[in-house]
């Protein structure tokens, strides 16, 4: 174990995340974990880590970090104008960094969440099987909270010298966060809480991502959706991407730090591969929803899994 970075400026909301805390939702413990799981996984692969290693999740206004040990890093996800000693650091590519250099995040260019991976992974105590930070309950990560000035980030001793810097994603493989295609969902589960007319409206109108959006969920604003009877349901499980509609008719998409159960009717659920595309949208963006079949959603999910396996193999050969 070694100190790898010193936090000079913490950024707006920077936290250690991995793939989430699985198996404890039955006790009311949220999963947490990276908002954009795809970017998190790819960033890890680029530095030779397992996909489930912890990364640093960086939201919009990123931190300034002092490098304390030579290592290899990569940034996946949003382009937040990262520089190393004022030289631009491209996303989706691994770089060697040296002790004494300063890694700075600047102006957000596109996307919302970036993931900094370091060879060997960021160290944090595992709490209930995960290193993910759940700040509301002070669970996981660095003392259960977002980064503060003066913090030290630790990393396992990795054989970083064997990891060749300069691994990268092909241009054609890069996700496009400026896309205008609709966010795909599977209808339900509370289909009887909404009329056909309401569903028609839900799939035709656009919704704006409001300022009240965070790791718990994205609150949307648009033409209010009405319920056939009432907004409240008997409290029931919610999943990543579940879209609740409370009495005011404005949908909320539930994300990584969501509670495990909710009491509002659920109109639809965003499919797994489209959650990263949604979370990378900026506040103020207009989005639309499109209903797809389970077959379509799972085919895309499996294809993404195959892509990640291929990428892992290709990068290993690249050493």
């Amino acid at each position, binding site marked *: 174990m070694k100190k790898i970075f010193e936090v000079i400026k913490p950024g707006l909301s920077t936290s250690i995340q991995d793939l989430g805390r699985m198996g404890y939702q039955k006790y009311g413990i949220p999963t947490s974990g990276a908002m954009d799981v795809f970017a998190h996984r790819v960033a890890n692969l680029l530095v030779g880590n397992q996909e489930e290693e912890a990364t640093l999740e960086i939201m919009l206004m990123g931190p300034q970090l002092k490098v304390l040990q030579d290592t290899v890093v990569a940034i996946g996800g949003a382009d937040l104008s990262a520089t190393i000693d004022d030289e631009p650091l491209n996303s989706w590519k691994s770089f060697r960094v040296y002790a004494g250099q300063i890694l700075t995040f600047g102006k957000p260019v596109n996307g919302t969440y970036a993931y900094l991976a370091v060879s060997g992974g960021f160290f944090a105590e595992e709490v209930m099987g995960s290193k993910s930070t759940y700040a509301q309950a002070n669970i996981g990560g660095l003392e259960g909270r977002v980064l503060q000035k003066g913090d030290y980030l630790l990393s396992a001793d990795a054989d970083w010298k064997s990891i060749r810097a300069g691994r990268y994603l092909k241009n054609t493989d890069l996700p496009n966060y400026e896309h205008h295609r609709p966010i795909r969902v599977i209808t339900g589960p509370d289909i009887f809480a909404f009329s056909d007319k309401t569903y028609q409206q839900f799939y035709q109108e656009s919704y704006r991502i409001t300022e009240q959006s965070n790791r718990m969920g994205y609150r949307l604003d648009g033409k209010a959706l009405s319920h056939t009877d009432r907004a409240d349901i*008997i409290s029931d499980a919610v999943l990543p991407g579940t879209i609740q509609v409370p009495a005011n008719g404005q949908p909320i998409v539930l994300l990584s730090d969501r509670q495990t159960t909710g009491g509002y009717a659920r109109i639809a659920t965003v499919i797994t591969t489209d959650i990263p595309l949604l979370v990378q949208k900026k506040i103020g963006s207009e989005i639309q929803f499109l209903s797809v079949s389970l077959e379509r959603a799972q085919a895309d999910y499996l294809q993404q899994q195959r892509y990640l396996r291929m990428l892992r193999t290709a990068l290993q050969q690249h050493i």
Partner: protein
Amino acid sequence: MYSIQLYGDRGVRIQFGNKIERQVNVNVHRFTSLLEKYPMKGITEWIPAYTSVTIYYNPGEITYMELEKKLNQLQKIMSEEAPPAARKITIPVCYEKEFAVDMDDVAEYHKLSSQEIIRLHTEPLYYVYMMGFMPGFPYLGGLSEKLFTPRLDSPRKRVDRGSVGIADQQTGIYPLDSPGGWRIIGKTPARLYDAEKENKILIRSGDMLQFEAIDSEAYYKIEDAVQNGEYQPEISEEKGDPS
């Protein structure tokens, strides 16, 4: 009732009824104990609720069709499954003024003495229908109708961990400091969520809870013991149908 429906591209929701009823919820727990007994490849976890259990799975390991088939098979043997043994947990609560900011208002609302409220609150054996809302928070059934009290008009910015409150037809305990609009009538020194412990969560769905009134002296004594890691609430296993 038994119905199965897809929920997003990684979820399956199995429903056992439409109402908050003990018998429906016991079936939820029968089913989750079968899921524990017969682990299935591809199932990541499950979330039991009042009337349903939602299963989260990995479509890379099991298809929806296969999963549905296996779950239907489990349902067939469900009636042979004895209801899970209920644990009874005694939660010490101090209802004295310093811990009960809303006691006077609740007493005033119901035209009852605080003694009467304490008696009504400690009398029932509460049933834990489900967990949720925050880590370790139990949704309890069994509050006396005489204590149904509306929430505060405007929630407090901070309610202390351990606070015991009433909100409409429910009573509950805050496992962590949190904002909240429940009417606070007492506080327990016991921890529902304890980061220091191996088993971090005290209560599980399907448990029975009993509140026991303690004075402030006992409260502080238990609080000290909790801090030293020497306190464990009284838990007894009770066999048979909790309903």
